[in-house]
């Protein structure tokens, strides 16, 4: 940002009318791009409490990676280790061929947007944004130019002379972003930066943040507990549970191919089907379908949208069952219907709204949509 020859190309990128399908290209890009930061076997214990266990993660140049997890999953601790505010109990951080975890925070080319923004109350918006450049002893003219560019980028030029206490939460958020980005870090860390905003502003900032990230081309590591936010913004999601990574994948992948039962339940709604494989056939209660899995117990995740009201006839290979409607929840365009089938099996299905009240229904789903997942063992 604010690079002498930069703005033209950036502007052209910004107004480019043909934005390709984001998730697909992004995953291809991140696979092709070189690794920026490599987190290797990082563990952190506070006293006897293990907060992170053997976390290994590669962050690619220019990618938008979200660390998703419930509160207490260790996501903020991981971010603070990368920023340098916490020291890992074991493990290493590498940026290129440089050992990052041995550097103090002020030598790392990593900047942070804090959850509380942490703007300096005694400095104006402008002075806040220029702080890093002044500390780095850049020439005054350059500081003025870069600060002006950064404020322009986040649309805060009008408030340049205001103190942080005089601007709104959303505006403070933009200032915090500008203050971090003006230093041209190689990696930007964002610790639940949208959690303090109300729902509307939050959705708007999600879009803005994502387009800003594409524009500046800096890798973002974004921490959140909100799975929807993670799905909307990320190139890849790293799902953290009790200090361990459950799955790292693109939003589409993590939704359609969840690795574990926990992932399947944490991201979106799902039906978990317990089954037993014997001689090429899965049996779970009254349901059964053919499979190529080896014999033994198996757990499947079946998304509600893959369960349909059974039509007459239909292609073969569909698993069919019949049940009584327990509950019908209206969600706008779709509704979620809980159906009690034989043997205490409850299936949740999603259909387009407008079907009216249902009582007894015939259901069907394709066996291919039942995704094999690992059991998530209890931790802690």
């Amino acid at each position, binding site marked *: 940002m604010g690079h002498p020859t930069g703005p033209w190309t950036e502007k052209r990128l910004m107004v480019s009318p043909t934005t390709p399908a984001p998730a697909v290209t992004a995953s291809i890009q991140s696979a092709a791009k070189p690794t920026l930061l490599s987190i290797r076997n990082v563990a952190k214990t506070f006293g006897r409490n293990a907060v992170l266990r053997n976390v290994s993660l590669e962050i690619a140049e220019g990618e938008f990676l979200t660390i998703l997890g419930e509160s207490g999953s260790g996501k903020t601790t991981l971010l603070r280790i990368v920023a340098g505010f916490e020291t890992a109990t074991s493990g290493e951080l590498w940026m290129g061929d440089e050992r990052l975890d041995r550097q103090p*925070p*002020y030598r790392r080319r990593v*900047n942070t947007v804090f959850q509380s923004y942490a*703007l300096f109350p005694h400095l104006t918006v402008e002075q806040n944004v220029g*702080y*890093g450049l002044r*500390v*780095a002893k850049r020439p005054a003219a350059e500081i003025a130019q870069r600060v002006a560019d950064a404020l322009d980028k986040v649309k805060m030029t009008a408030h340049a002379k205001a103190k942080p206490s005089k601007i709104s939460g959303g505006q403070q958020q933009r200032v915090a972003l500008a203050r971090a980005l003006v230093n041209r870090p190689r990696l930007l860390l964002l610790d639940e930066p949208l959690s303090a905003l109300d729902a509307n502003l939050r959705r708007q900032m999600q879009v803005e943040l994502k387009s800003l990230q594409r524009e500046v081309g800096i890798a973002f590591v974004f921490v959140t507990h909100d799975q929807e936010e993670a799905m909307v913004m990320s190139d890849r999601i790293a799902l953290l549970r009790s200090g361990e990574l459950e799955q790292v994948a693109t939003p589409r992948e993590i939704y359609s191919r969840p690795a574990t039962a926990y992932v399947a339940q944490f991201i979106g709604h799902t039906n978990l089907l317990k089954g037993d494989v014997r001689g090429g056939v899965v049996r779970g209660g009254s349901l059964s379908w053919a499979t190529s899995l080896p014999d033994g117990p198996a757990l499947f995740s079946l998304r509600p949208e893959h369960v349909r009201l059974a039509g007459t006839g239909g292609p073969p290979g569909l698993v069919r069952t019949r049940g009584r409607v327990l509950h019908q929840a209206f969600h706008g365009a779709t509704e979620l219907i809980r159906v009690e089938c034989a043997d205490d099996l409850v299936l949740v299905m999603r259909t387009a709204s407008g079907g009216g009240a249902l009582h007894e229904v015939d259901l069907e789903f394709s066996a291919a949509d039942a995704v094999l997942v690992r059991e998530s063992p209890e931790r802690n």
Partner: protein
Amino acid sequence: MSEGATNLPRSRWLLVHAGAVFAFLYLPIAVLILYSFNGQGVGGFPPRNLTLDWYRILFADEPIWDAVLNSLQVAFAAMVIALALGVPAALALDRAQFPGKALFRRLVLLPLILPGIITGLSLLMLFNVTGTKLSLMTIVLGHGTALISVATTEVFAGLQKLDRRQEEASLDLGATYWQTFWRITVPNLKLSIIGAALLIFTLSMDEIAVSFFLIGRDNTLPLEIWGRLRRGITPEINAVSTIIFVFSLVTIVFWYRLRVRSEGGADVGMELLETSEGSAK
């Protein structure tokens, strides 16, 4: 806060009671100021023949002015010593983890609770043992060490209210620990430090007990006044007290204005003033 109270029927006795308390607090000061203008000396009621004579006499009184100058010097030096030792102690209490920290915290606060006689006497014994000649310097050391606790408590309170994320943000933006301390920590503590400085200055200015034990040939103002009172009271004392009172009042108003002006910043140690203002509204 006062919404509930306004709905209650106002008691007349409450007003009388409040009036009595205020009279008890401020009547002596009012009398003191009034009699500094009394032509009849300290006797007689009501005061008659208002005059500025006592101020004229006061301004010509060399020993009083020497004492004022001594007190100012002592207060300033004590303030510097107390801050230089008290601020790092507050930082250590807030940030560092070391064995015996709880004990250290209590020991730092002890001089605040100890009677001045004990502090004075023990320092006197120390100076006797080391063969140090008593002078203004020994008073400076006495005040300085006794008032460290004021600097520590005031600055510690400020540190507790400081958002540590701000310091992390500063480190994150490339400032070293030292730069962060001067650019972020100190500006945020500015009011605590100024508050502590003013408080130490004032406490040192009117300190008697410790000074009494450590005094050399030169008097501080309170000791000078006290010495004169033994020979009989004169309105000249009232005049000098009035000047001190006005000076203190100006200092407090100045501090308060400073606080109000730096809105949103660290609000420190002045809850008392704030509550009293709030309830007056």
